[in-house]
Each structure stands twice: as C-alpha cells, then as structure tokens.
C-alpha cells in the first residue's frame, strides 16, 4: 500500500508534507479526498432495498464519484461521505432497488 494513499475513514488524516523534497515527483495519491468529504452537497439521498437488489452492480459501474461500494455480503453500500445525490444509480437500477429520498438534515 502506498503510504500516501492512507486508509479511509476512522482517524484518517491527510498526510502533511513539510518540505518540497517529501513530495512525490508527480501529483498522485495526495490523500486530499480523505478529509475533503463531498457528500454534504446533496438534497436527495439514495436508499438501497436489499430485497430488490439482484447484485448486477450496474449502479456501481455508473456512479461517477464513485460512492458505491460492494459490501462483504455482496449487496451494494453507499458511501454517504462522497455521494452527491445525483440519482444516476436510482435511474439505472433495473429492479428499482434504489430510490431517492429527501434527506433530513
């Protein structure tokens, strides 16, 4: 694992580089998305109904962020830290397992 890549979530912090020599040659794996959550932009939130999900993963392919991950049990989970609520997943889902609901904040 690249050290700059870090681990997501619990206690995740962006690695602070103090001198120019510590920087990688190319601007890769900066870790900025670890602290820069983009999920608070949305109004509507996708909710997955596992009973209707057939594990086709079309939502996973189409998610532009990507905020959809595949859970250990094979169903899809949504990473609400990064989901912008675009609704593409709900639109593409062939079994209508994903619905967009107004988010209560």
């Amino acid at each position, binding site marked *: 694992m*690249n050290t700059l890549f870090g681990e997501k979530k619990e206690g995740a912090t962006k690695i602070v*580089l103090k001198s120019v020599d510590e*920087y990688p040659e190319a*601007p*890769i*794996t*900066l870790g*900025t998305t670890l602290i820069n959550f983009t999920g608070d932009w949305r109004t509507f939130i996708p909710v997955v109904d596992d009973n209707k999900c057939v594990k086709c993963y079309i939502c996973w392919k189409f998610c532009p962020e990507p905020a959809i991950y595949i859970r250990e049990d094979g169903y899809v989970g949504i990473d609400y830290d990064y989901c912008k609520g675009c609704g593409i997943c709900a639109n593409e889902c062939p079994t209508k397992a994903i619905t967009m609901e107004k988010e209560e904040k």
Partner: protein
Amino acid sequence: MEYKPIRKVVSGNYAAAYAAKHARVEVVAAYPITPQTSIIEKIAEFIANGEVENLQYVAVESEHSAMAACIGASAAGARAFTATSAQGLALMHEMLHWASGARLPIVMVDVNRAMAPPWSVWDDQTDSLAQRDTGWMQFYAENNQEVYDGVLMAFKVAETVNLPAMVVESAFILSHTYDIVEMIPQELVDEFLPPRKPLYTLTDFDNPVSVGALGTPADYYEFRYKIEKAMEKARKVIKEVGKEFGEMFGRDYSQMIELYRTDDADFVFMGMGSLMGTVKQAVDILREEGYKVGAAKVRWFRPFPKDELYELAKNVEGIAVLDRNFSFGQEGILFNEAKGVLYNTDARPIIKNYIVGLGGRDFTVSDVKKIAENMKAVIEKGELDVEVDWYHLKR
C-alpha cells in the same frame, strides 16, 4: 552492432511516422488535420500491414480526445504518441496542461501551421509557441532528418525527466517535401531507447494511485516547482542525450543552440525550424561577399537554452532574431525570450526582431541578404531603426 543507416526518401511526416514506429510506441491516438494527416495515415498503414506489434491506434473524434487518450495510455504506463497542427493543437490546449502536470512523457509531433482566420494551412510557428507555458518541452526541426532524430531523442529526454515533449516541423516545407533521411536499424534504436520505466502506473494494482485528485493551496505550489526542476534537469539531459545520439549515429545534438559559422561573426541570425536551413545557405553566400555573419539555430525552445544564448551574445555585436510567429501587443516570441534572458547579464549586443514568413510567406536567401544589409547598418549606427521589423509588409 555496427551502425549502418537505412536511407529512405521520405516526407517530414513519414519521417515522424517511422520514428514513432522505431520508438516502439504502444498507443497512438490522433485526429486528422492538414498538414499532419499523413503522419497518422502512415502509422495506420504500419498497423494494417502488420509491420508493428503491440501498437494500439485509437481513432478519436477530436484533438482534445486524442490528447486525453494519450494521457490515459501514458498514465497506464504505455509509450504514447500523437500528432497535430494549428487549430487541432489549440483544441488540445487544456489537455496539454494535464499531460505535463501529471508528469506523463507523451511525445507529439506538431506540424507548424498558421492559426486561422484567415484560413491557412501554411507554415507559421505561432500555434506551437502559443503552447509555450503548458510545461511541454519543444524541439524545432530544421529538416526531415531532424524530425526523425527529434522524435527518438524527445522520447528519451521526456521519459528521463517525466515531462511531455513536442517535436515541431514546418507545414509543407518539411511535412510534404521529400528528402533523404538516414534511419536507424531497429536493434540500435532499441539500444538507444529502451522500454519506458514509468514513474507510476494505473495498472499496478498492488500499489494503487489516484491521479488528478484535488491539490489544495497547501500542495499545488510544490508540484509547480517540481515541474520547473524537471525542466532544469532537462537542459542537462538534452545535452547528454544529444551527445549520446551523436556518438551512436554520427549526428550530434549536444548543443541546444546549433551554432553555424559564428566563431568570428560580427552578428548572427537567430531563429528556429526550417527557415534556418535557408539562413545557413545565405550565411555561406554572405561570407563570400565579405559579411562576417553566422547562424544560431535554437533547437530546443523549452526548456530555453539560456546559458548558450548568453555565451553567444558575449561574442557578437548584434543578433537578428527571425520570428515566424508573433505575440500580439508585444513582439516576436523568440525575440521576447532572447531579450529577457540577456537583460540581467553583461552581454547586451544590439538585438533586432524581424517578423518573417508568417502564414507561409516565402522566406528566401535574398531576404536574408536584405536583412543582413539592414542589420549591418543598424550595428554601424549603433542604434535601432525599429525594434520590430515587419519585413515582408507591402508598403
């Protein structure tokens, strides 16, 4: 293996295509535009004839996509190549920053063509020079041989410093004009240009990287500095690679400014690309007529050969900068660069700008002779008549 060149009569564009083939490029993504088209046609022909292995041609719908595809391929670790001209290069502009910012050693041939309107397909350097600040290295070829050699060297330099490079040739004057080009046997090209060792790859699944993530003000600055450091390193690498090329194949490119009969010259003509062939011939004639003149051909415009220009300026009384390009509101672009370099030095020869050959206007030996007469008068008088001389203007 002993070097025995393979001599072929080819156009500048075919020279570029053969160089890409010999460099064993793995991905070519390009869109046809006059006068570049025959480069990618020839590459498509290599593929159709089965002459190349492991070369993927991506037919795209625009130059912006061509560069995007090259960026993707290069980030995945492939050796990527493309070619374009004028408006096509301008359309690529946004992606050019992307290539250099992500430190991808893509090589592109730009066939210099005037920007429209008025619509023009003829030679003019403004298209490539307008990409000056994109972080791409730029090599200007004088003839078809230099197009071929330039592409091979550009790959080596680019992959050493991890910056993209542009090899620039003149529309029609080189692109469609046939000349003898000494090509290098594949085994020796392989020796000169081994397979690419990428800085990172998107296909290394054990060490995943994210490319193009957000760079906040806390980090962006350092990466710009790193690009500049790579450009500085490129100055050294270019000279080493040029020297190695000379030792292996007999054509030395260790100088970023090629000096021609400048040793005892009173003044020199400085310029880039194919027009310098005309200038060299004119220098020979002028020498016979008693003018002590020389030619200084700027081979690499980015990184700019500052030290070499400084050395040259110390030993001459005047520099006539021939610009086949123009930066509106100011002056010729090479002239602007050259003056900028010399400002903080002790070397301050008289330097005058001649705007020549825009949009493919003929530039001949007799033009150089007229410029020599004018330059001689300027030096004798010790002051400029005009700083920027629109030499061809119908008055």
